[in-house]
């Protein structure tokens, strides 16, 4: 009990050893929410301390370490070494299965592009939710194509290069047609009465044909700029 005041008094006259001061600054900088100025260090440390000198040692100690003593204005703070910033952001990839609505919509865009939402709905026989289209756009698998020159100038959808990459296709035209699908056993039911040849190169040849030429691509960009429908 009687030791404590003595000890304190002693420290009034004898500053702690420099190595001890270095430890103190280390703890102070670590625990402080704001950068700490020299005068503040001095105010907090035992009387007679020389934070400037101890700081030199501390900065040297942290040279090349994972954190560094940085000077911020006239104050000091620990900062993550610049080359290790990548550790702070972590990417976690989660795989999910695409919903049935999304995969069907995607398939229709792939086989029928450029295709309007109304057409997608007609083919699927159910309405297509905004979310489904948005999701496919966000996935970078479909994008807006040229507006259809019909009343209302509806926007069309086409597949993207990313889509082709992902599905390992050179071109959307490489997608097997219905006949091939059937031959591959992918169609379990009897052939539909419609055109057996119908496929991506079916009767929409003209529409599809110009889909991937340069003009169309350029047009798409324009579209997005003046599209007030979004």
């Amino acid at each position, binding site marked *: 009990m009687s030791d404590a005041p003595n000890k304190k008094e002693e420290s009034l006259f004898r500053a702690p050893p420099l190595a001890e001061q270095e430890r103190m600054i280390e703890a102070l900088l670590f625990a402080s929410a704001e950068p700490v100025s020299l005068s503040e260090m001095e105010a907090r440390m035992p009387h007679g301390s020389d934070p400037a000198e101890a700081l030199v040692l501390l900065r040297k100690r942290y040279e090349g370490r994972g954190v560094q003593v940085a000077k911020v204005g006239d104050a000091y703070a620990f900062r993550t070494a610049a080359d290790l910033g990548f550790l702070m952001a972590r*990417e976690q990839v989660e795989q999910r299965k695409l919903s049935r609505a999304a995969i*069907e919509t995607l398939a229709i865009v*792939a086989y029928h592009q450029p295709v309007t939402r109304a057409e997608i709905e007609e083919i699927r026989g159910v309405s297509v939710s905004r979310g489904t289209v948005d999701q496919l756009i966000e996935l970078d698998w479909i994008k807006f194509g040229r507006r259809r020159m019909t009343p209302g100038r509806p926007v069309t959808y086409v597949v993207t290069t990313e889509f082709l990459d992902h599905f390992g296709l050179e071109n959307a035209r490489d997608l*097997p047609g*219905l006949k091939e699908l059937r031959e*591959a*056993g992918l169609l379990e039911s009897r052939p539909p009465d419609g055109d057996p040849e119908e496929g991506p190169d079916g009767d929409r040849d003209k529409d599809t044909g110009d889909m991937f030429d340069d003009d169309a691509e350029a047009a798409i960009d324009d579209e997005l700029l003046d599209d007030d429908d979004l």
Partner: protein
Amino acid sequence: MSEAGQPANTDDWDSVTARREAEALIVDVDGFEGPLDLLLTLSRTQKVDLRKISILALTEQYLAFIEQARQLRIELAADYLVMAAWLAFLKSKLLLPPEPGEEGPSGEDLAAHLAFQLERLAAMRDCAAKLMARDRLGRDRFVRGAPQAMTTNRKITYTAGLLDLMQAYARIRTKDDFRPYVMDREKILTMEEALDRLRNLVGYMGEWADLMSYLPDGWTTDPKARRSATAANFAAALELTKAGKVEIRQSDTFEPIQLRRKDT
């Protein structure tokens, strides 16, 4: 092991100091955390190791305390009275010889248990004090004052293979005239049929894909059909593996079985 069986030593209790202490206790009765706490406090007047405490003396002290409180018309919680009743019972057990053929623990056992409870409570108090006196976070030890945001960007990737795409398309295009596969033996897919079908699909198998994704449409919902189709598909997949057409793998027991085309 305890002095419980010995006659009560009430000398201390009669002394003026002890009386004063007891009165102070009564005034403070609200401050006690129940009868055990009160007993523990009373036991301190014995000034002995808790292991050597005289339970009988303690019992006397407690009963006297309750009696005084009653005289002073201090209302005591029921627990205190229950304990008093129990201690009175204990006292009689300690003082009277056991009745022949009596069942249950002896007075000594009960007294030993009470002594143990007091010791255990005292030990916990001690521990609590030691715990609170440790170098505590936010008082003696400090956390990083300027933590940096460590983010985890949850990126969701959607998996869909070419096969899914084509199957989806086929499903839509054939919806109108779709009818379930009808066979002689309903709900039985033969290995030959599965093999024929899989052989055709081999060309489209790119990356590893679940065997189950190759089940034919219309065979996935009905449990019987699904079971048959799964078995047939699996056998067919083994055949194709044997023939060197596909590769097959399973990461662990009951994990999905995956297939992919074997590049030659």
